[in-house]
């Protein structure tokens, strides 16, 4: 029964989205109710599945004796599903207003809704092959969202995204096949490679790991494979916010987490040379992303580079291959989702209300858009990592995990985190200062036409701000939920 429920929760938005162009709503309200109903139903169903049906496994069919399409609800996937099913309705609400003047709204909301189901498919996959399937589908379903406005720039960004993503997924696929050929299991209910790990196989498996790490690293925007992400910022803001800060990029991170803790295991990686290499890349990306964000003046691109940096926080935590690393990474996956989507929503609100796209043009905006910039300030301070806001906790957890792990690569990562914190304050607080204190010579009349967006856009912002504060002060329930992954990934613990 519950197996069917997994299928329903995945297929409902996919079919619902696919049908949308056929239904061809003329009235804006009608489409809104339809899309919202599907998204909310999916979210509610998904949350009830997470809370009640953990451990459900379900094989749809066997492709071969070793490859099957299977679904599974475990805590690791549930954390990801929780994140997207909370953020999707908020983003959809925001998108209604943001896209209200756009063309081809049926197409947009169709693909937007389909992506929800596909992302849940990634979360609830029972093995790497199934996950790979949804992972590729996600690339395809989000492509039309990137190219939505039809400009040349958007098409170029779309092609770039496609090439990067497919190439990455292919590399990951090679890694998967390599693991299979040596007798490893890709099922997530089997932790580790088991008897496949022998002295003779070791180098081969190391190479396979790197293939998967860098392959999935494309979506996780790992340097030097991150190039598509800032370019994809031409997409409408709900897409950049939800997909390029949460769903798509975190699918990459999530996949690497699966590879590290489920396909391989912590014992295999701990202390190995591949772990070091991967950690160094993550640490470097943390610094690289944050410096690029600081140099970038385009508002959304700045945030995109900030995402590049923050995704590698999560990768870094995962790659520590310790229980603390796993939980710290998941915590940052959730918290970064909340913070970054809020920041993007503000950038989008500014674009929507005033057409301004560069951070240098934001002088005095805080007075014109008080809610947006209030939330922006909270999210900025949270992302820098000031307690008692949520970003502090996850950064703290990552750093403490690195201290406990105690290797030189771990300390390198701590240094990267600290450097990044300073740059984060520089690239975000300059915006805050500019918006609140434009200084002398500022003409308030220049902003008299700029107003706060309506509640479709401000309500999600306020909800996110509340979450950032509440989860920062009282993270107990969430951390306990996340700690549930340990029983799975560290059976001996």
């Amino acid at each position: 029964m519950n197996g069917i429920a997994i299928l329903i929760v995945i297929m409902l938005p996919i079919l619902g989205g696919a049908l949308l162009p056929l239904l061809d709503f003329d009235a804006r309200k009608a489409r809104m109710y339809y899309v919202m109903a599907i998204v909310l139903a999916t979210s509610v169903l998904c949350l009830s599945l997470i809370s009640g049906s953990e451990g459900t496994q379900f094989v749809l069919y066997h492709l071969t004796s070793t490859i099957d399409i299977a679904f599974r609800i475990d805590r690791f996937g549930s954390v990801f599903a929780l994140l997207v099913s909370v953020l999707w309705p908020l983003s959809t609400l925001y998108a209604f207003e943001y896209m209200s003047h756009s063309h081809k709204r049926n197409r947009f909301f169709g693909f937007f809704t389909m992506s929800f189901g596909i992302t849940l498919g990634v979360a609830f996959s029972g093995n790497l092959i199934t996950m790979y399937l949804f992972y590729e589908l996600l690339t395809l379903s989000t492509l039309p969202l990137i190219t939505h406005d039809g400009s040349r720039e958007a098409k170029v960004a779309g092609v770039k995204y496609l090439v990067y993503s497919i190439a990455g997924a292919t590399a990951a696929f090679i890694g998967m096949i390599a693991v299979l050929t040596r007798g490893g299991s890709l099922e997530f209910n089997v932790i580790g490679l088991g008897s496949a790990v022998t002295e003779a196989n070791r180098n081969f498996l190391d190479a396979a790991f790197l293939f998967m790490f860098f392959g999935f690293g494309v979506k996780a925007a790992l340097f030097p494979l991150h190039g598509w992400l800032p370019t994809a910022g031409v997409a409408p803001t709900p897409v950049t916010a939800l997909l390029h800060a949460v769903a798509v990029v975190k699918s990459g991170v999530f996949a690497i987490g699966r590879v590290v803790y489920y396909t391989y295991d912590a014992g295999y990686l701990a202390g190995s040379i591949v772990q070091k290499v991967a950690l160094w890349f993550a640490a470097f990306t943390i610094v690289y992303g944050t410096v690029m964000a600081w140099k970038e003046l385009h508002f959304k691109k700045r945030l995109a580079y900030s995402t590049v940096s923050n995704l590698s926080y999560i990768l870094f935590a995962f790659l520590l291959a310790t229980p603390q690393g796993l939980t710290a990474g998941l915590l940052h996956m959730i918290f970064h989702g909340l913070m970054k989507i809020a920041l993007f929503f503000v950038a989008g609100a500014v674009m929507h209300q005033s057409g301004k796209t560069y951070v240098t043009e934001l002088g005095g905006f805080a007075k014109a858009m008080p809610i947006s910039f209030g939330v922006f300030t909270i999210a900025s301070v949270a992302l820098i990592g000031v307690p008692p806001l949520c970003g502090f906790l996850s950064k703290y957890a990552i750093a403490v995990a690195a201290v406990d792990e105690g290797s030189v690569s771990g300390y390198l990562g701590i240094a990267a985190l600290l450097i990044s914190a300073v740059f984060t304050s520089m690239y975000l607080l300059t915006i805050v200062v500019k918006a609140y204190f434009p200084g002398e010579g500022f003409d308030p009349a220049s902003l008299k036409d700029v107003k706060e967006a309506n509640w479709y856009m401000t309500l999600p912002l306020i909800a996110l701000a509340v979450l950032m504060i509440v989860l920062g002060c009282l993270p107990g329930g969430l951390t306990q939920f996340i700690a549930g992954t340990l029983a799975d990934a560290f059976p001996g613990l």
Partner: protein
Amino acid sequence: MTNVYTLLKITDKLTLQFGSDPTGRFFLCLVTIMWILVGIYAQKYKEHQKHNARFFTFYILTWVMLASLTMAANYLTMYLCFEFMTLLSMPLVLHNGTPESIAAAKKYLFYSIFGATLGLMGMFFVNTYGTTLAFTAGGVLDPAKIAGHETLILWVAFLSIAGFGAKAGLFPLHAWLPTAHPVAPAPASAVLSGCITKAGVLCIIRLVYQIYGVQLLRGTWVQMALIILALITVFMGSMMAFGEDLMKKRFAFSTVSQVSYVLLGVFTMNETALLGALLHAAYHSIIKDGLFLCAGTIIFWTHKEHVSEMKGLGRKMPVTFGSLAIFSLGLVGIPPFAGFLSKWYLASGSLSEGLPVLSWLAPAILLLSALLTAGYLFPICIHGFFPAEGEPEAEGKEGSALMLVPILILAAATVLIGIFASPLKDALQAAAATMF
């Protein structure tokens, strides 16, 4: 810490806790008194500036965070208050809205956040290698856990202490201070220089005595390095002040130098030196607030900002310049004014510690710096009261009571605390004793 109150339990290890101990109470009293006096002064000075509602909002919020900082009972709470104090005091620096002041505010912000981030790094390691994050006399590190990791822990201690030193203007993270303090409105400069720098000092006291512990640090390269940094700062600050013509900037360089006197005492790590440090923290707050308020008064009535423009001004503004003279005598450390006793304890504490070279080098540099202090402060009063022959008559007048009364109270304090030194000294001696 007594009367510990838990505001919020974030996780088992991370809690927001406040409590009180003699050192914290001392800093709390000090900053609160200063805040009130400067606040009274600002009621007149505000005629000079716009956006007063905003100014006083952030003025009070900064005090709230600073006061919370003095009562923070653990590392996390202290870090939180420290960061928010930075964020909330930043608008005071950029209040004038000129491009320079906004640039200065950002410089202040990023230096402070950089320092705080280094400080935060300490917490990561204390979390693992310590037994608790709560401030405990003697330190919280677990000897069993740090065995074999001493080099690492010493580096962490050094970096995190130097990080919080950014707020106290410790070389090499001092550069924001002479940029940010002069551009702020005079009341803000006064509390920034007189009080907020002390927040850095308090954080360092907490780290040295109540987190890492004197046991661990005494006699190590970390202690040496920190003392050397403090001495460099003392000397460099005085030299820079000596060569600076802009009055508020001269005072800001003087702050760089003087706060490192306090840090020198903290780093010397014995009771005498710590007593000297706490005394000097009090004296310097009183005197530096007074100096900045005098500078503010002069700017308010005459718009003169450079020392070289003040020839003969003392005859028009005798009360202001008279007070300025008292503050100068105090800061140089001429008995019986406040400022003598603290240096006495700092020097004798250093001599009794027996560190190679540094034990006698420190008093020598203090002495040299005192001479420089005389060199950069006395000429202001001398030229103010005794202009050279043929100087044109200066324009200026004495201000309103709102501005003069706080200055006179501070000047009186400088004299009285110097003459009747024992109550404060005894109280601080008790406070210093609780740290060991």
